[in-house]
């Protein structure tokens, strides 16, 4: 059944009129005219010689040569029967084999890209060929200058000379870099590869899943045939059983399709439903450490201080330190002090 649609615009008009509402004036129908604008601009392109435009001949093919001037395919065929001739607009000698299909609306861009590709073949140094980024950037700017000059016909002769000179000087580097991609291009290639792989992976998974389902169904069918062959039960019952099983299988498959790996992680790797306690962390309140000088009970008479050993004459009884010993910080006082501590401690008997 199809609703026969009557003019809905007027339907609203009617509705609003029913409520005695004046319709606001319609503002601009630009939405509908816009595509036409696009059309005309694209159609305006044409061959400067025979004046054919895209609008009159939709299959018109525009060609462009090194000078950046356009000609249509037919004119090219006609003018360049002998393989070479001069440009209609700028009189540059051209070869027929150098004509390319014009890719861009602005033929100078075609020309520039052509030149750029040529220049880049020679100027193919990479960022690692330079000691610093700054120099690399200067080099890039130089390349840009050359392309600019060649495209806009500024100082062409000199620029060409410069290029040739550069080519002679850097032959090795150019040769070496020919096959190398820039680092960024490598990265891009890698990304593309990754993308391709993950797509392939997904496709394979889907395929495998389908295969598995198909197999399960086939098995189910085979089981029914087997049962019909061997079982004693009436066929209708078996068929009913089979139907139930098939339905179960179907729902199972449906469920599997629905089930995407459940996840308990946010994409940041944090667990969902992780409860965060809002209690402030309990502060462990301890008494501050207070230094007390060490009291050692020696159970003996008081030992003379380290500084006093020399004055009291104890040092006379130990071997004096030779120069080799003192290098490590040894003094004879240390050994003497220890010996005295040893001798003095534990001389008093324990009380009680």
């Amino acid at each position: 059944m199809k609703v026969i649609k009557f003019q809905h615009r007027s339907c609203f008009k009617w509705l609003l009129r029913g409520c005695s509402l004046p319709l606001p004036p319609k503002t601009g129908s630009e939405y509908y005219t816009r595509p036409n604008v696009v059309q005309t601009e694209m159609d305006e392109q044409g061959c400067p010689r025979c004046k054919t435009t895209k609008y009159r001949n939709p299959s018109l093919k525009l060609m462009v040569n090194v000078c950046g001037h356009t000609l249509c395919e037919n004119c090219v065929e006609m003018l360049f029967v002998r393989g070479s001739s001069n440009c209609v607009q700028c009189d540059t000698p051209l070869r027929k084999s150098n004509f390319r299909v014009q890719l861009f609306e602005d033929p100078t861009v075609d020309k520039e890209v052509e030149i750029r590709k040529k220049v880049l073949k020679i100027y193919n140094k990479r960022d690692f060929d330079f000691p610093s980024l700054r120099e690399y950037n200067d080099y890039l700017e130089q390349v840009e200058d050359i392309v600019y000059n060649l495209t806009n016909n500024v100082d062409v002769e000199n620029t060409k000379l410069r290029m040739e000179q550069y080519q002679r000087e850097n032959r090795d580097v150019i040769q070496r870099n020919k096959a190398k991609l820039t680092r960024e291009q490598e990265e891009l290639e890698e990304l593309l590869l990754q993308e391709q792989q993950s797509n392939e992976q997904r496709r394979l998974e889907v395929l495998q899943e389908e295969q598995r389902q198909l197999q399960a169904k086939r098995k189910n069918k085979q089981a029914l045939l087997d049962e019909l062959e061997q079982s004693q039960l009436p066929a209708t019952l078996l068929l009913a059983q089979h139907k139930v099983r098939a339905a179960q299988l179907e729902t199972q498959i449906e469920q599997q399709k629905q089930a995407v790996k459940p996840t308990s992680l946010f994409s940041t790797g944090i667990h969902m439903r992780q409860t965060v306690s809002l209690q402030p962390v309990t502060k462990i309140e301890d008494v501050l450490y207070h230094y007390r000088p060490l009291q050692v009970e020696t159970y003996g008479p008081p030992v003379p201080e380290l500084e006093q050993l020399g004055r009291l004459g104890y040092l006379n009884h130990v071997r004096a330190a030779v120069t080799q010993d003192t290098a490590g910080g040894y003094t004879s006082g240390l050994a003497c002090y220890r010996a005295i501590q040893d001798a003095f401690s534990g001389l008093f008997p324990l009380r009680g």
Partner: protein
Amino acid sequence: MKLNIEGLLVYFPYDYIYPEQYSYMLELKRTLDAKGHGVLEMPSGTGKTISLLSLIVAYQRAFPLEVTKLIYCSRTVPEIEKVVEELRKLMEFYTKETGESNNFLALALSSRKNLCIHPEILHANIVVYSYHYLLDPKIADLVSKELAKKSVVVFDEAHNIDNVCIDSMSVNITRRTLDRCQTNVDTLQNTIHKIKETDAAKLREEYRRLVEGLKEANVARETDIYLANPVLPDEILQEAVPGSIRTAEHFVGFMRRFLEYLKSRLRVQHVVQESAPQFLKDIFEKVCIDRKPLRFCAERLQSLLRTLEIADIADFSAVTLISNFATLVSTYSQGFTIIIEPFEDRTPTIANPVLHFSCMDPSIAIKPVFQRFQSVVITSGTLSPLDIYPRILDFRPVTMASFTMTLARTCLCPLIVGRGNDQVALSSKFETREDFAVIRNYGNLLLEMSAIVPDGIVAFFTSYVYMENIVASWYEQGILENIQRNKLIFIETQDAAETSMALEKYQEACENGRGAILLSVARGKVSEGIDFVHHYGRAVIMFGVPYVYTQSRILKARLEYLRDQFQIRENDFLTFDAMRHAAQCVGRAIRGKTDYGLMIFADKRYARADKRGKLPRWIQEHINDGSLNLTVDEAVQLSKHFLRQMAQPFRQEDQLGLSLLTLEQLESEEMLQKITQIAHQT
């Protein structure tokens, strides 16, 4: 009244408070204490705005070092005005209570004409503006760049925030954009030419700066003065502009090549979809443009525009758009897709090529916000299911809570009408779109409702096309005529002027007493920003489930991305999206506790648990088994009963102590106990 929220003194400019407001403030305070992000859902009309404002202002006063600024983002200008009004009330209350004139500076930014930039913002304590000022990289750079780290950001009415994020990062390029861009580039070239003759030093100075690199911006970013801009990736700041686009002429030539390339890409015969790396590879092969200069494109253009001292930036919107596109496409290898369509689906004969560079990951746009500010609060009346927002926006909330409305009387009545009187299943699903029986039953439902509901009825359809079809059919069947015996009918159209006129007249008709019916569209202007308080909307009828148009390639790409990256099933997301819009639509009718309204879901699919479960909790609570899968007749019976009850006088005293509290009532032990149960943690 003065409240004590876990030890914080909060001035609340009203004499009474709703229990859920108290609970809301509790959760909010905990979020601020933890310096984390929060997702809070509270029904509209229960005073979210004032709760938010009074708590955060109190917090700011109590801990001026912890929270220095409140950034309040809302969606539309009327909503911003509402916030400012509430804020004014709060400030008056402060002055009255404390006796001192307050030293708070609040600032509202609404439209471009009263756009004011940063010296004030830097000092204001409260800034109220639209989402775009924070999320849209182009505007955020102008306005929000220097906001302090210790700010609290609130996104109100944030149920649509993911779409705002996506829109702010997506670029659509038509042939027209490119033509305008072409003119821009020509103008640039001419200006450069002129300046070279008159004031070459200026260009040289710029050139010198570029050779040095973008150090300034880098220092700013590292010292964390600025909000990061997703269009200005970190790597760029650490490097100098590549030599190939350093001088102005070279850059213009570069733009020209890029432009011509885009033009050639738009000349397609069939739809092309590709990823960013594929695009970059192709652009290198065709016009020898590397990835690196593309990355610097946006920044380089800004620099050039500044140097040329071009006053009217708006004229250069096209070239800015293209340069932003260049930077984005070369920066993000994931999360974006490029779709080139030669014509619109509806008009395949008219060539109208569009290049959609569409963002599929809302977290890219909002990431700087979450990273920069210590607390970001996302709140709205309809955020269910709560856990999907942290997933699609990729952040980790410390609080997620949904609050219900405490009611002294059940003032909302959701009904799910699944069948007509002739037992035909009602549904807007594709197969039954043009089924006469369904359309007739829908008409019948509206007719019956128009007879029993007083004052205004708002009806929502799933799309403009669907509405047009149905209304045309109703007209033929004479249903419209019958409805018009009861109420006047008004229609929302795609024309904004027409719609606002219809809306105005609808309200006028409601004032007159007999009431009116407004036919509108979910996701339209009416469903998003317009409230139907009291008699402006006594019933909302939702015809069908407002699924988004699923055949669009952009949506398909986004769904695929969600599945692969976030493990969200297509169906889940579509249902979630449909239900949040349905909830938005029906929520239009209830804007407070004294208000009442019917909510009629006219589609049998609403009865299913997966749909019903995605409605906000405050609506779900009132759906019982008796209101599922009703016929039109049954729904009418229930509505009559409900409306009769609601028509009884309802005074403030009836509410007091139940859903409206004085300070003493609030502080009673029993009430505090109850309040802890309002918040539903997920």
